[in-house]
């Protein structure tokens, strides 16, 4: 346990920090790619299983769809924002931000 603070400090050292950043951006883009797959599943599944646990109630389905929809938008907004931030940190003033690196 006594080594813990020491170690953390090493991890936060300058060179490792950039590496972290690149890694983080890669995973962020992975998340951005995965999001529509998740969305498709959440949007399409209720129709596949008509007699779902929500039990055919239109009102409940309405709530379900809008809840899922809004949550996805929220996640997308957070992802887009972080993607921009990570990008900005990594290359300060190097060029205009564009999300092309991980392709």
């Amino acid at each position, binding site marked *: 346990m006594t080594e813990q603070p020491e170690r953390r400090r090493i991890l936060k050292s300058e060179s490792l920090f950039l590496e972290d950043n690149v890694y983080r951006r890669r995973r962020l883009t992975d998340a951005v790619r995965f999001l529509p797959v998740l969305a498709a599943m959440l949007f*399409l599944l209720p129709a596949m299983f008509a007699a779902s646990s929500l039990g055919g109630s239109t009102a409940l389905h309405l709530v379900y769809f809008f809840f899922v929809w809004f949550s996805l938008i929220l996640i997308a907004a957070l992802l887009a924002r972080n993607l921009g931030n990570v990008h900005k940190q990594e290359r300060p003033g190097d060029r205009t931000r564009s999300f092309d690196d991980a392709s």
Partner: protein
Amino acid sequence: MVPFNTLIFVAIAYVALLFVIAAIADRRARTRQSRWIRSPLTYTLSLSVYCTAWTFYGAVGNAARSGLEFLTIYLGPTLVFLGWWWILRKLVRIGRAERITSIADLISSRYGKSTSLAVLVTLLAVVGTTPYIALQLQSVTLSFAVFADAAAGGAGTPWQQAELNQTALYVAVGLALFTILFGTRNLDANERHHGVVTAIAIEAIVKLVALLCVGVFVVWGVSGGPNAMMMMIEVSPAATWQPEPGRWIGMTMLSAIAVICLPRMFQVLVVENADENHLAIASWAFPLYLLAMSLFVLPIAVVGLAIMPDGTNPDLFVLTIPLAQDQSGLAMLAFLGGFSSATSMVIVASIALSTMVSNHIVIPLWLNIRRDGAMVSGDVRDVVILSRRISIGVILGLGYLYFQISGGSGALSAIGLVSFVGVAQVFPALMGALFWRGASRFGALTGVATGFVVWGYTLFFPAIGLFPDAMMAAGPLGLEALRPQALMGTGSLDPLVHAIFWSLFLNSALFVLVSLLSFPKPLERLQGASFVNVFDRSVGSSGWAGGQLETEDLLVMAQRLLGGREAQELFQTAARMQGKGGYLPDPTPEFVDTLERKLTGSVGAAAAHAMMSRVNGQAAITVEDLLAVADESAQMLEYSSALEAKSTELQQTARQLRLANEKLTLLSVQKDAFLSQVSHELRTPMTSIRSFSDFLMKGEMSPEDQRRYSTIINDESIRLTRLLDDLLDLSVLESGSVQLNDQLEDLASLIDRAVSTVGLPETGHLEIIRKTAGAPVILNTDTDRLTQVFINLISNAQKYCDAAEPKLEISWRVNGPNVEIDFVDNGSGIPDTKQNLIFEKFSRLTNMSAAGSAGLGLAISREIIQRLGGSIGYLPGQGGAAFRLVLPRQRVSQAKSGPRVA
């Protein structure tokens, strides 16, 4: 109640307001003042052209008929935008990098600038969009009718078809005027329309606010809060959750595809995109907009079904509910919302379509017709603008015609879906364009054409009731397998799903198959690579970013080609003629024309035209252009290499002249030095002769002294004579007027003669070693002169060799036609720095004037050897002073008359 005239007035005032906004935005965009116009917010709002009157009115109708199914129309686009990283990002990047002007342009560019493909996609877009425009006219007309009826208080007769037609005509004409004014105001290189986009963003806000207000009124004003609303939904006949999985998935997919492929969506999404980063924000902001738009749709439908009398058109609940509740202000707002939805769709769609029609159909045709005539490049621009204006008119005319013929039939949403399936036929080719390098032009053509035909057969013609009932039921010519809505016996499918499945399936299958089997042209492969690998290119290469052509770009290009000063002068003059200051004139046709001609002068016609089109963003560069450019470059290369050869020659001549000049200068210096040396050398003996003769004249001295002085005088005179002889000799040799007498003689005997002449036995302290191998060497040359050289070299060794036991080794060998003779002594030799001086006149290395030589020996030797056609040089690294003579055994007589080498 709202008087009908008030409604008309409000509608016109609203249009006027949009007009002003568009005009201001246009002006601001031109002066690059407004950040707002290019903000991500405007971009996101402009994307709302997806939500047309079909969405505004029709979604409620749809919800009233099929419950939650209306959601699919919004969920599809949500999927696409949440997944922007996959498709949209690439689409936008390609659109910017390749300066794409429409979806037809993108498809045709990708598949090798194929005109046939561009025409096909354009045709598909026009056919698919016309009913959609008709739909907008219908919704606006119907909403007018609702107000007219309400204003009449139910007393008058409801509007008949004639009145509807008339209204639709007015609306169509008004929209055409608006679109022409702002859509074709100027030919922007990037096909961007800041004014229009801004107006549409405003309309997006209006329609969202309108729908939200109606929704809030319905939930809180009519049904009494969210909970009550939920109860109403539960019991409503409209809304039972019985989704048909095929239709649900099919429609979600379809609307996802449509949001990419619809010409108007492509226009705002890709063409009008001002900054790629806006897409990242739109990826969540646009779904949010869609969510807000659909939030109250089901409540409005449910309340409408509950409170409105039976037989009321559910498509117009948004208007009729507020009217029925005496909320005329709200109704007016709702009307404006619907009006906004309809007008924004029609404006953007007709701009997108007119771009396609004019770029891919009218202009190629016009150029073909004009091919024979004189080509004045300036007037293409006018033709482009004119053809766009006409295209807009024609497209709206078609929409109106369709509206009149169909008689406003069918539920709104049905027509919308038919359109969706039509434009979706571009999707397989589009995906191939973005992700598959192997996709070929033939594949795309076959796929799109097949999809187009199948769509017409299974959906479009049945929908507009073109096929007789018998054919629908029994198939054409009684072929059951070909029944339009039950191909291959798949009649159990929903007609829409049936059409989606068959058209897209056959489309994709043939696209892939034909692509696999065909072989693309080089340009196709080139374009394929640059599209699919668009992200491999650097960000900087994405063309003329910022979207301003523009004159500045032209100036940059012109400066490169014409040179800075001339280009700036040209631009300044043009600007002054347009009444502007500075260096940037407007890119008027005249100016562009002048510039192109100017550039033609410096880079050739084809290259100039290609470059100008590139900067102008109008024409695609064809392979022929490239070939022409290559040809011209080759010619210029040839010319420039000839120039280069010439200039090399000139450089050589100049170098020779410079050398000659240096030599002359040097010679003159040498001559001065020589003269001063000669006078100095002459003066020393003369001085001693004079002084000793003075003594003798005075007498009064012993006879011994007299004899001594006389001897000195005699010696000095001899030395003087010898010096004069040498000078004479040298001058004769140098002037080339020396007479050479060739004779045959053995080299060894020549050396013997030289050694004996020097008179070694007397002095006796230089040992001469002769080294030779093989047969005696017989020379045919001026042997007397050669002996003189030998004497010189031997006596030099005698005088200067500083070894304790001086030795001179003389060796010779035959080397081809020449004989090499080396004289090597064992002294300390001559230092490196002096080696190149020893052959110069008066170049005694030390002041050993006592040696009795004026330092002319080696100079004379060199002259002689050169006369004899050989060379003499100092041979370093032999352990002492060493000279090598190289001499032809048979003197070439030409050497006598040859040019004199100084």
